[in-house]
């Protein structure tokens, strides 16, 4: 063993000093370097984990929000569709009612116009007939006055007597 150590060129003193140095360095590093670094790393890891958790929570909240928004949007669209359908139905009913009212009004106006036209036509006819009658009567009167002789007068009187015979009760 001692030969092997000798052949390998190991210096016990140096080896022990190195070991002591190693443990000393290990102790110092552990106390002043690794500890804080590991603590910092743990803290950092915790922070990151918390951040990730928060991020996931936010992500979930966003997802929920989006889902809720999508649901609300879908409901709003459905409601809008229903309202549009209702409005269309109402519009059809209003349109039909308006058409019916317009038709009734038109019928009334046409009837009124026809009545007025008939009345005006009758009045015009009456007026024309009265004018024509006046002209005819005037012309006849003029002719009778000019052509009235004793003979015509006698014949008229004879006709009057004939009427008496016809109409006497």
């Amino acid at each position, binding site marked *: 063993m001692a030969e092997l150590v000798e052949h390998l060129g190991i210096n016990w003193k140096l080896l022990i000093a190195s070991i002591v140095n190693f443990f000393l360095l290990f102790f110092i590093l552990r106390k002043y370097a690794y500890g804080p670094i590991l603590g910092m790393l743990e803290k950092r890891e915790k922070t990151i984990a918390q951040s990730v958790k928060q991020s996931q929570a936010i992500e979930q909240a966003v997802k929920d929000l989006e889902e809720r928004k999508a649901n609300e949007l879908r409901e709003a669209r459905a409601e809008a569709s229903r309202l549009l359908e209702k409005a269309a139905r109402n519009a059809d009913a209003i349109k039909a009612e308006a058409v019916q009212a317009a038709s009734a009004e038109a019928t009334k106006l046409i009837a009124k116009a026809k009545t007025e036209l008939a009345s005006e036509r009758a009045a015009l006819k009456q007026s024309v007939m009265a004018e024509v009658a006046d002209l005819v009567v005037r012309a006849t009167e003029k002719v009778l006055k000019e052509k*009235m002789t004793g003979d015509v007068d006698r014949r008229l009187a004879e006709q009057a007597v004939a009427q008496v015979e016809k109409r006497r009760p």
Partner: protein
Amino acid sequence: MKKFSARQYGIALVSLLEQTPEKQRSAVIRGFLQLLRRNRQFRALPAILAAAEQRRLEQANTVRVKARAARPLSAQLIQQLGKVLGQTVLLEEAIDPALHGGVSLTIGEYAIDYTVPALLNQLRTQLTHD
């Protein structure tokens, strides 16, 4: 007090006068007027006299005809009218040149207007309404 119609009074008056000698008729008429006053029908006297005259004319088979014409009616026409009516015609004639021609006859309640203005009016009515 019983009230009578003008026609009843008229008929009674004529009948009474017919049965009364001419000298006593004034007394009968006075009595008749007193009766009217008593019955408070004196105001009906014109109608009673008209009814009496009508009665007298009926008895004489005579009819009173009121005629309006532009010219006097001929005797032939009056005779023809009497023939148509079957009675003697007592004519009351009114001449109105404004009528131009034709005649208007009123026989009791019945009237016929065959004058030129009436015929023209008739023509106007026919033209207007036909």
